[in-house]
Every structure is written in C-alpha cells, then in structure tokens.
C-alpha cells in the first residue's frame, strides 16, 4: 500500500515535471498560495511550511510562495476550484477565518470543492477585561451577558459574525443567553487595537486571539477571564480555560492548508503524511511557538470531519444572530 502510494506520487511527479519542462517553465516541486498580503497569518503559514519542507527535504528544490490577496481568500478559492482542482503540487494556507467565510456563503465554491489536508497549530481565543474592571471572573461576565447585556460593550478584531464575535456568542449561549443579538459588538482592525481601546475606557470586554495581545497580559494591563482551549495554554498556565469554569466552549483559530478537490487519494495521503512529518519536526514546533501558536495536529479524514463540523456550528450561530438568512 505504502509502496504504491509512493510509486503513484513519484509517477505523477515525473509526469508533472515532464509537462512543466515541455512548456519550458522551471520545475516547481511545490507551490503555496497565501491568499493575503505579505505579513499576515496566512503568509506566515506558507512561508514557514515552505521553509521547513525544504529544510527537511520533503520537496525537490524550493517551495514557491505566491501572495494572492482578495475577498478574504475568495479569489484564491475560486482560482483553485476553476483552474487547478487537480494540481497536486499546490497547497493553500487557510484558517478558521476561511471556514467562517464558507459558512456564511462568502466563497464562490462550497467546502467540498477542496480537500482539507491538516491543521498544524492554532492561536487560542481568550476573553479579557481591563485590569481595573469590576468583572473578576467568567461567571461575573456571563451573569451580565445574560441579565443585562446592554450594560457592557464587547469588541474584537472581526466584524459582526466574524470568528472573534462568534466565539464570544458561543460562550454567552452556553451561559444561557438566548437572544444573542442583544450583545453589543464593536469591530476594530486588530486585537491590539481593541485592547488599547479597552485600556482607554471606550469598551469593556475583548474577545480575540491570545498571540497578538500576549504582551498586555504579561504587563498586567489586562486580565484574561478565560482561554477557549481544551488544555491551559502552555505559555500562560495560570489562565483558566472556559471548560474548567463550566462553559464547554473552545475557540481555536487554527492554521492549516487545503488543496484542490480533484487530486487523487494517493496524492492526498502523501500530503497528509508529509505534513505530519513536518509537524513532528523540531523546526515546526519552534517556529510555531515563536509566532505565538500552540502546535496542534489534526490531519486527513479527521481534519475534514472537524472542518465540516465547525462550518455547521458557525452557520447556525450566524443564522441565529441574523448575519445570514
């Protein structure tokens, strides 16, 4: 089985390079598209995976990185669906944000148009208040969100219906608030923007990824009420998880990759096993932590099921709060 997998993938590689030569283009062993401008999370995913694949000799030559911003990933999604669905040398960076877009019908093709290979790490969602806030625990916040939602202003780096907003609402719903639309939400351009506005007294609660705002936690400017992860975050073991406080909600912003929906199973399995090798390497574990991610592995069928379930949850909440009909 293993041998045939290898054989087919080698064969297809040979065929692909033969085709590439015939149009006189340089042989590319792999290409990663970051559907964003240089510098963001998707760009990091591509550049880091690309670099480590070379370091581990998982590819011949180098991994070409292409930035293709547009439509929060929709431009790339359409291009792969229409032009390169069977290109086994291509992989594309995505994250929870991409799945949110799909759940709300903002991508030109459905989830099934692609094959989701793996997630290799995640930024953990947190819910934080200013250090001077009277709200001391997640239970305090939940009580307010249920009994008097108009008295607090919540904020984060996503639009209404974006992931920062949705995971806060998941907490509120778990706490017993049914009419989620009553909770006031303000969008800022980034997690740090929201935190500094909270320090300036404009807003009360921030829901966002921990990576970007870790400095404010260490400096004591803000207090984190809950981490939306299964286990405490390694860098901040003292922050209680929402689960440990009786609220069964996790809110990872995972980083992973997909490829075209028409590649063969053998090609797909090869990607999954290559990325698993990469995930287990020292190189990836170091790079992920340096970028503020918690290394988490989900790959293959397991990951595809996870992505589908996440889409369903998001679609339901988006419908509940009226972001989509």
């Amino acid at each position: 089985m293993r041998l045939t997998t290898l054989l087919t993938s080698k064969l297809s590689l040979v065929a692909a390079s033969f085709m590439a030569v015939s149009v006189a283009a340089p042989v590319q062993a792999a290409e990663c598209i970051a559907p964003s401008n240089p510098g963001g999370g998707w760009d990091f995913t591509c550049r880091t995976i690309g670099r480590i694949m070379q370091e581990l000799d998982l590819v011949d030559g180098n991994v070409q990185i292409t930035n293709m911003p547009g439509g929060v990933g929709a431009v790339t999604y359409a291009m792969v669906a229409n032009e390169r669905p069977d290109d086994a040398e291509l992989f594309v960076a995505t994250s929870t944000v991409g799945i949110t877009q799909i759940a709300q019908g903002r991508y030109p093709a459905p989830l099934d148009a692609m094959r989701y290979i793996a997630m290799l790490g995640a930024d953990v969602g947190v819910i934080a208040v200013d250090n001077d806030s009277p709200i001391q625990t997640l239970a305090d916040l939940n009580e307010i969100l249920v009994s008097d939602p108009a008295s607090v202003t919540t904020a984060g780096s996503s639009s209404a219906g974006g992931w920062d907003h949705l995971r806060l609402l998941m907490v509120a719903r778990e706490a017993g608030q049914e009419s989620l639309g009553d909770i006031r939400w303000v969008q800022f351009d980034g997690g740090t923007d929201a935190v500094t506005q909270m320090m300036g007294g404009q807003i009360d609660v921030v829901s966002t990824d921990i990576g970007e705002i870790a400095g404010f936690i260490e400096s004591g400017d803000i207090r984190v009420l809950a981490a939306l992860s299964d286990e405490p975050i390694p860098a901040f073991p003292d922050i209680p998880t929402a689960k440990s406080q009786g609220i069964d909600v996790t809110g990872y912003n995972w980083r992973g990759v997909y490829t075209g929906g028409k590649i063969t199973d053998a090609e797909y399995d090869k990607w999954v096993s290559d990325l698993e090798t990469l995930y287990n390497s020292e190189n990836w574990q170091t790079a992920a932590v340096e970028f503020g991610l918690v290394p988490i592995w989900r790959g293959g069928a397991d990951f595809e099921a996870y992505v589908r379930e996440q889409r369903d949850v998001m679609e339901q909440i988006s419908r509940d709060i009226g972001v989509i009909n």
Partner: protein
Amino acid sequence: METLSLLAGGFAVAFTPLNLTLLFAGCFFGTLIGALPGLGPVNGIAVLIPLTFAFGFDPASSLILLSAVYFGTMFGGRISSILLNIPGDEPAIMTTLDGYPMARAGRAADALAISGVASFVGATIAVIGLSLFAPLLARAAIHFGPADYFALYILAFATIGGISGIDPRKTLISALLGLMIATIGIDPISGIPRFTGNNYHVYDGIEPIVALVGLFAISEILFLLEKTVKERTKAIHVESWLPSWKAIWMTRWAMLRGSFVGFVAGVLPGAGASLGSVMSYTAEKQKSNRDGTFGKGDPRGVAAPEAGNNSASGGALIPMLSLGVPGSGTTAVMLAMLISLNVQPGPLLFERQPELVWGLVASLYMANVALLILNLPMIGIFTRLMAVPTWALMPIVAAVSFVGVFSISNSTFDLELMVAFGVAGYILRKMDINLVPLVLGLLLGGDMERNLRRAMSISDGDWSILIASPISITLYILTAGFLALSIYLMRRENIREKALSE
C-alpha cells in the same frame, strides 16, 4: 540619559562595514523600487524579508537593510511625483501638487533637493520626539476613542477643501467620489458585502494603489497620447540641473512646521502618514499662501508634506512599537518586518529589548542620512529624466504600471480596474476636476466611516457620543476655525483679483 546611551549604542551597531554597505545598497534599490509606479514599500519589503533569511543576517543587520529599503522607497515615490506627476505611493500624492508644477517650470532639481532635505528634517524631528516622549505619548494616545478619530477625520476633510482651491464645488465632487469608492467591499463592521456586484475581487475593497496608479499614471499616458497626436510637445526648459541651496533654505520654517504637524498625526495610531502629509500641506498653505502661489509650484508646498510625511512615519513608530498597533499601511509593513524577525511589539518591548528598539530608531535615522548623501548627488541624473522624450518614457511608465499592479495581487482583474480608473481619471481631468481629493477620500474615507460606526455601536445609536469628549470638542472647534479662516481668505482673494482686473 539611559535612552541616549541606548540610542548611541544603536548608532554604533549601524557603523560596521557590513551594515553601512547594507544601508547604502538598501537605500539605492529602495529608491529605484519606489520610483516605479505601483511598486512601493510593501513590495520592496516583501521581496526582502525572505532574502534576509536566506543570507542569515542577524536581526540588527536585517533591520538596517529593511529600514533602508523602506525609506528608500518612500523617497523614490517622490521622484516620480515630481518629475512625472505620478505618485509612487500613497503619501507621495501631496507632493504632486507643487512638486510637478515646479518641475514644469524647470525647477525639478530644487524640488527633488527640497523633498530630500525635508524628509531628513522630518525624520530628525521624529527621532527627537521618539527619544524624549515615546512611552508617555503611547499612554496618551490610547485615550483617543472612535468618536475622537471621527472628529479628526472631519478636520482633515475640512482642510481638503483648501487643496485645489480653484472651484470648491469640483473639489467636493472629487472628494465625494473618493468617499463613495471607499464604501465598496465587505463592510468590516457588519461583515456584509456592499456595492460589490457579487464580484469577490472587490470584496476587500478597491486597493488604493491600483486606483492611484490608474488615476495618475494611466490618465497621464492618455493625456500625453492626445498631446502628441495634436501638437508637438515642447521640451521643458530646465533652469538648472543642480539644486540651489538658497531655495532649500527658504523653506526651513515650512519644514519645521510640517514636521511638527506630521509627528502629532503619526503618534495617533488611527491617523498615519497619509493624514500627516495632508494636514502638513493644508496647514502650511493656510499659513503661507499669501500670494496664491500654492498649487503652482511653491517650494514650501513640497517641503511641508515631505517633512510631515516622514515625521509621521517616525511618530507612527510610537504606537506601533509600544502598543503593537500599526497606524498606517506603512507601519503595518514595519510590523510584519519585526514579527518576521521574531520581535513582538507591545507594552513590554521598551523594557525587555531596549537595544532593539533604539537600534531600529538609529537605523531609521541612518537610512535618512544615507538617502541624503546618496540622493543629492544623483539629482542631476534624475533631472535628466525630464529630457527623455515622452515617446520613449511613457511606454516604460505604462509597462511598469502594469507589472507593478499585477505584482500586488497576481490578478488580471486589478489590471482592468487600473485601466478603468485611468479612463475615469482622464475624463475627470478634462472637466478640470482635481484628482487629489478623490484619492484622499478613498484613502481616509474608510477609516472615517468605521470610526463613526464604532462610536455609534459603543453608544448604542446615541449621536451625542460624538461631542461627549473634550478631545472631539476641541477638534470640532479647530475645524470651525479652519473653515471660517478659509472662507475669509477666499473672500479676500476674490476682492484682490477684482481689484487687479479693474
């Protein structure tokens, strides 16, 4: 005192042979990249980040190289603004207003030199402000809430009316068009697409640089095409290939005022370099336009926005480093650059990695010195571009515009959009509508709307939040004063013109 010794340490690092070489090489290539329309700091830095990994430079050397490229591209953006009326990047747009008329009048060398010296003065003042007040200012800036930012944008838009000045109605039309274009795309507040026609290419909104290159470069090509068909263009009589020091010295106060205004705009994380150069220009015009020379090639109209822009870029480092909030597109690039070097800006950066912070400040400053040394002697070469016949120059500009815009997103849609903007720009210019307010509307309109709506979300729809803070009240009073002064000056101008014509 400690700050000063750290800063001195930063300079010491910059003075090694390798770092000096990187500094000058970065400035040189940055200038070239920046001078090409469509290619700006984002492209320059994006290309270089992987290169610094490949060569295995240490963080200090990488920072020096990237800062040199960054300021090089910023300076290069001015060259095409002045010589071709095509801004190389967004903040360079104000430089076209007086820089290009200066070049048409044969004073390209002066304009280039003033822009170089003004950038240097602006950077110097920003470095001084940064060293003295950085942590203090960062803590003050967080008290600016969405309602205050909205008031600041209102002030900025009130001053735009004073830019082109010929016919306020046409300025208004132009600015409104820009504001309308700024609403295209997924609304970041509600997450709902607006005016996109279900075309996901515009879900992220209209990329300002695509509009900018279309409106300026492509429409300029169309204009020159028309001219070459209809008439033989006369070569511009160049007064001098080299700048005169007297002209530079005459703009010293404009540079200082511009630097101050720009620095204040830069420190506010929601404002940034484009706003800085706009406010510096309009403030200077209000102050100095006694004889109606602004917009017709007044050297102070080049000095003020150039100083303001660089000073704002320096000032914007304060919220970027101490809060991790990038104030503008350009500081967002710097932030990406720092993260790629495993530096996470935030409240503890100044305490934990002071050598790195001051190393960065020192290298930014050194980049400005290097640019001055490198570019003043090269002005003679750049000015000779003016002597290149249009039939040779314009095809190159067209080719570079297409390549530059394509390199941003790898999509042909942006090329079509650019050409559409070019045609629209040509038509608007035929109607004597200045395009600068349009681009400013596009650049600033999105942030203005977002801050208004954030304020409304916070107050749950109560409009009184807009005048609930002392900061916003002060800004509205300033706006009213500014408008009153503009109307008064316009009246006086009219009376004087009447007197002259009689």
